[in-house]
């Protein structure tokens, strides 16, 4: 029982982090049609900036609000100066460009903050543990389990009840149509990319108290987020949620039951979904 509950919580908290990262990735793909390799670098920047801000203002909450906003600003610059120029190109060019951005950002982080490991403290209120069967469980992980769906709900309301959200959804479904009905697409693209970067950075800032910071830390997470996006359905918001949860749970239960094959599980899942339901769980028929 304890094993099951622990694995469930472990999987959920990891899944929630994956969700935050993937939802930005999937929205950017849905609207801009760009699969952003540098998304993991925004995740990394979010964590580093949160740490940097905490050195200036010793508050995790300030860090988690200001840090991702700065990354969102960087997203604006990158979209306007670089991505915009290659929307009409093949997807391979987009991968190459975002890969170049990834190289640039990863090395910049190493130059600015040094190559060593850094650690970010959780805020005092979330730092402790609570009793959990015979052992204890960290509050911060529970916080992740709770905050994930909350952010998800906020995003969902945004997409469904605000004008901007509806515009984004419409553009994700059909870009030409959106243009046709008079949506200012360039502005929309900038906003969506900035939004995606902000979400990735928010994921990074939330992950910071829970994993060590090192250059290129985003590269580890990017492939898993790709998998989430694909199995959930490219561009699908509920898909990202379901995919992230599934991958998180697979990770934790796989550790307990699959032994060394656990390493291949996400890729097996990816292949199986693509073979039998290529549009993903929530994707539209293509």
């Amino acid at each position, binding site marked *: 029982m304890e094993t099951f509950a622990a694995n469930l919580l472990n999987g959920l908290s990891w899944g929630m982090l994956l969700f935050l990262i993937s939802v930005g990735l999937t929205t950017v793909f849905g609207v801009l049609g760009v699969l952003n390799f540098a998304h993991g670098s925004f995740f990394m920047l979010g964590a580093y900036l949160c740490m940097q801000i905490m050195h200036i203002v010793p508050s995790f909450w300030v860090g988690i609000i200001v840090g991702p906003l700065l990354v969102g600003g960087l997203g604006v610059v990158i979209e306007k100066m670089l991505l915009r120029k290659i929307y009409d190109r093949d997807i391979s060019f987009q991968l190459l*460009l975002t890969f170049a951005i990834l190289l640039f950002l990863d090395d910049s982080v190493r130059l600015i903050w040094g190559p060593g490991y850094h650690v970010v403290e959780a805020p005092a209120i979330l730092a402790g543990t609570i009793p959990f069967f015979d052992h204890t469980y960290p509050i911060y992980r529970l916080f992740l389990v709770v905050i994930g769906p909350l952010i998800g709900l906020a995003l969902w309301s945004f997409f469904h009840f605000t004008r901007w959200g509806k515009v984004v959804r419409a553009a994700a479904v059909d870009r030409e149509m959106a243009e046709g009905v008079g949506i200012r697409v360039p502005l929309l693209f900038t906003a969506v990319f900035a939004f995606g970067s902000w979400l990735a950075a928010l994921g990074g800032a939330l992950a910071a108290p829970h994993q060590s910071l090192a250059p290129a830390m985003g590269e580890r997470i990017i492939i898993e987020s*790709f998998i989430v996006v694909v199995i959930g359905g490219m561009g699908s918001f509920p898909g990202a949620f379901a995919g992230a949860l599934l991958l998180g749970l697979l990770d934790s239960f796989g550790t307990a039951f699959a032994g060394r094959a656990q390493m291949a599980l996400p890729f097996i899942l990816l*292949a199986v979904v693509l073979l039998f339901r290529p549009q993903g769980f929530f994707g539209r028929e293509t």
Partner: protein
Amino acid sequence: MTNSAKILRNNGFLFFLLFAILAAAPFILPIYWLIILTEIIIMGFFAMSFNLLFGFTGLLSFGQAGFFGVGAYCTALLIQNGIESLTLILSAGILGALLAALIIGFLCVKRDEIYFSMITLGFGMMLYTIAHNWIGVTGGSDGLPLCTIPAIKLMGWEVSLYDPRWMYLFSLSVISLGVLLLWRLTRSPFGLILTAVRENKERLAFVGANVRWVRLTSFTIAGGLAGLAGGLFALFNCMATPDFMHWSFSSRPVLMTVMGGSGIFFGPAFGAAIFFILEQLITNVTENWMIFLGAFLIPIVIFFPRGILGTIVELVKRRRES
């Protein structure tokens, strides 16, 4: 003279020139640059095999390193078991990769575009996991270090592949055969069908071609040639390791092909050359090569929409026409 004959004659001359320059390299270049050139032609050939799928068939594979790695492992396993015939060793690499590509391709070629990229990524990483975890056969994460590699034996004449010059000439001759094969293939009726699949697969299906079969053939050949490149790479580095199968290794041919130009036959190899030379020049100057490589790649992507070689060829053509 018809236009196509002209192109062919021009190309024939260029091919010969290129081959002559490459064959002369061991007598001109310092050893280290010869080693880099060996790496360039092997990786360039790998990228060209990838481009059979990407440039000619329109399928962006993200798991090509899987077949490269299968080739490397088959080669390495045969060497470890004392087989000394290089023909046999490299054929095993090709065959192993062909077989793996046939099975995986059978499942993958149903999918298009990004879905194809992702499913090949998935299968490539499964191959990686096998190499990483099947310790008894593949040596696990350490891979297979090759303590001896066979010598070239030809009619009583024997030279060691440990000599970088012979390693280079051997790779060059094997790769030239591979390149000729690729060239013939892309100019054959089959090559035209490939291009047609890329341009408009619905129409091709309509006129009765089996699109899936065409794609599968292309996928399998590309896999087999990647296996050849992998086998050579194993000989060149005296090792086969799981790193050769990782997705980050699969991204190399993508990078090189896009950089060089996927629309030009030698584009990917050109991209490989640019990539390695650039890396060497940058690491000579600075330790922070990643930031400079990134900064250099960005304008390439933006200002060379057909890759560097592709854009140059385009410019030359346009000037000639005007």
